[in-house]
């Protein structure tokens, strides 16, 4: 197990290098560059533009620029954000906790809802309750997240006033205080509910379908023939088998914890990584774009690795010896 993990981590390194090359090349290939995002080309002196270009190193050949960047990366220096006029690490560092909070919050909601509904529907298939749950699921799958988000803001924030409509924390609140944390949670609640609710659908269906399939397997018949009560059959025998496919989704979720939900964050003006990525692309803030993309790639790789390891935990048939 340990050797397997180490091997996987080592393989990640060349993959990440390749990803960084691709991302860097894409960022450079974007029309415009960091400088043009800042100044008005019509207004500025072409000589001044050239001089700035030279100074910022934007005229150097690609591999030189890449090498310069890479040298910084291994020292944990991802350059400066042209838009925010801060180190990229600082910018990301500000946003990352928000995204993690939102993701974890919404994942908890998803898991609670999905397990409750999925187990009920799986144990009582083709009943009115099951059809109701499936109906809700299809609705949640069909509604685009921005529509759901806007409706949620309208009802719960404006009409009912239960939650704040936008932002990740109240203004004028001192960081570090209890008030601060409560405000943060309050602001995260609505986007988390929307995000969590919408993603519940696929989990619920996965779980329900697998439970129904497992209930017809031979080992369930054996357990019944031993006089095992129905509750234990569903909650131990079947459930331990049916969570295995859920682990697949769990792996993706690890990656999404970092990646954030771009649309939800944007609609709620929630200061997270997803919103940062979009605005940076729009403003050609290439150093931020590259850093965030690299971070998402690492998160995906790590998520896959974690999912593979968790498979080994839940399914004894594929334990790595």
């Amino acid at each position, binding site marked *: 197990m340990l050797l397997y993990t180490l091997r996987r981590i080592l393989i990640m390194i060349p993959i990440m290098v390749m990803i960084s090359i691709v991302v860097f090349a894409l960022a450079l290939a974007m029309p415009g560059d960091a400088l043009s995002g800042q100044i008005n080309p019509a207004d500025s002196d072409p000589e001044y533009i050239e001089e700035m270009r030279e100074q910022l190193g934007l005229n150097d050949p690609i591999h030189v620029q890449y090498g310069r960047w890479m040298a910084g990366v291994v020292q944990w220096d991802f350059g400066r954000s042209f838009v925010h006029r801060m180190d990229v690490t600082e910018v990301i560092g500000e946003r990352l906790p928000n995204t993690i909070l939102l993701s974890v919050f919404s994942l908890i909601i998803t898991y609670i809802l999905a397990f409750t509904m999925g187990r009920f529907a799986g144990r009582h298939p083709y009943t009115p309750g099951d059809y109701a749950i499936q109906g809700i699921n299809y609705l949640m799958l069909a509604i685009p997240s921005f529509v759901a988000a806007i409706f949620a803001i309208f009802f719960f924030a404006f009409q009912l006033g239960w939650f704040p409509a936008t932002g990740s924390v109240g203004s004028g609140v001192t960081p570090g205080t209890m008030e601060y944390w409560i405000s943060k949670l309050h602001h995260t609640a609505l986007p988390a509910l929307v995000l969590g609710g919408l993603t519940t659908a696929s989990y619920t269906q996965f779980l329900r379908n697998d439970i129904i399939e497992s209930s017809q397997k031979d080992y369930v018949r054996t357990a019944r023939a031993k*006089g095992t009560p*129905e509750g234990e059959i569903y909650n131990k025998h079947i459930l*331990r088998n049916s969570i295995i496919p859920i682990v697949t989704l769990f792996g993706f979720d690890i990656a999404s914890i970092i990646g954030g939900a771009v649309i939800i964050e944007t609609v709620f003006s929630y200061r997270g990584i997803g919103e940062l990525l979009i605005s940076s692309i729009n403003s050609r803030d290439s150093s931020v774009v590259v850093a965030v993309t690299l971070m998402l790639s690492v998160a995906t790789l790590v998520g896959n690795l974690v999912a593979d390891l968790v498979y080994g935990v839940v399914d004894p048939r594929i334990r790595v010896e």
Partner: protein
Amino acid sequence: MSNQEALLEIKNLHTGFNIGGKTYHAVKDVSFDVKPKEVVCVVGESGCGKSVMSLSIMNLLPKHNGKIDKGEILYKGRDLAPLNDNEMNKIRGKDISMIFQEPMTALNPVLTIGYQMDEVLINHTKVKKEEIRKKSISLLKQVGISRGEQIVHEYPHQLSGGMRQRVMIAMAIACQPQLLIADEPTTALDVTVQAQILELITKIQDEVGMAVLLITHDLGVVAEMADRVVVMYAGQVVEETDVDRIFYDPQHPYTKALLTSIPRMDEEREVLNTISGIVPSLTKMPEVGCRFVDRCPEAMPECRQIDPQLGQTEKGHSVRCLLYDASHPDKKTEVR
């Protein structure tokens, strides 16, 4: 009228399946007894209803469309057919146990052998936790698995088919049941393993003192194991007698055909005997008359018009065939 000696009495059992709104009987009017410590073999082709019959006894039919329509299943005089799940759970694994045909899929792949073995004891006894594991290990030894202490920590995929079947047997006898139902326990195993498992069943039957209802399509197994034999065809019992007479004095044409279709080493032949035709499918059973009539070499015109009954031709030998007066509803003098 209940036979006081019998452990299990099946009386006029009808088990139906609801297909497309109509009920079709996979088991129709099946009656026979199992006495304590006796081995009764139920023989028949695939599709004759023997598995459905055995599942009916334990009430393990698929809930959404299978049901015992009529008849009684008397275990020590008590009818099991109307019992609900909670009541049946007290009997399953304790008084009556069952082992199945496919050992490869019969165990839960994500739970340890030890857990699945302990489960039977936890379900039915008040034995303490430490004692339970010890008992599981000793049960494994009893079925011929000497590495019990290691096996309890392993998972089913780490065991061979024969070993898994032994584990199944160990789980089945854990609470010393009076009746073991074995539904083709060796069909999915190699021939050599088959012999071992049958030997094991005989040994266990002696040690525990239980009756065995052994379902099989293999007449060799019947010859080896049975005290009495019940022959089923298309959901009905067509002949019932002790093992000697089934081989030396078969009365029903189907039984005779089964016996002649066994290839023999002392015969030289190029073409094997077969029974032409196939078992009628569940939804296409004839409404009236004998169900074997299309494949029967001795069929008579009245076989299509009169339902043959299961009648006793001599003591301890019953048959369902109009060739015998005992089976004819108008000519019979004694009925089972």
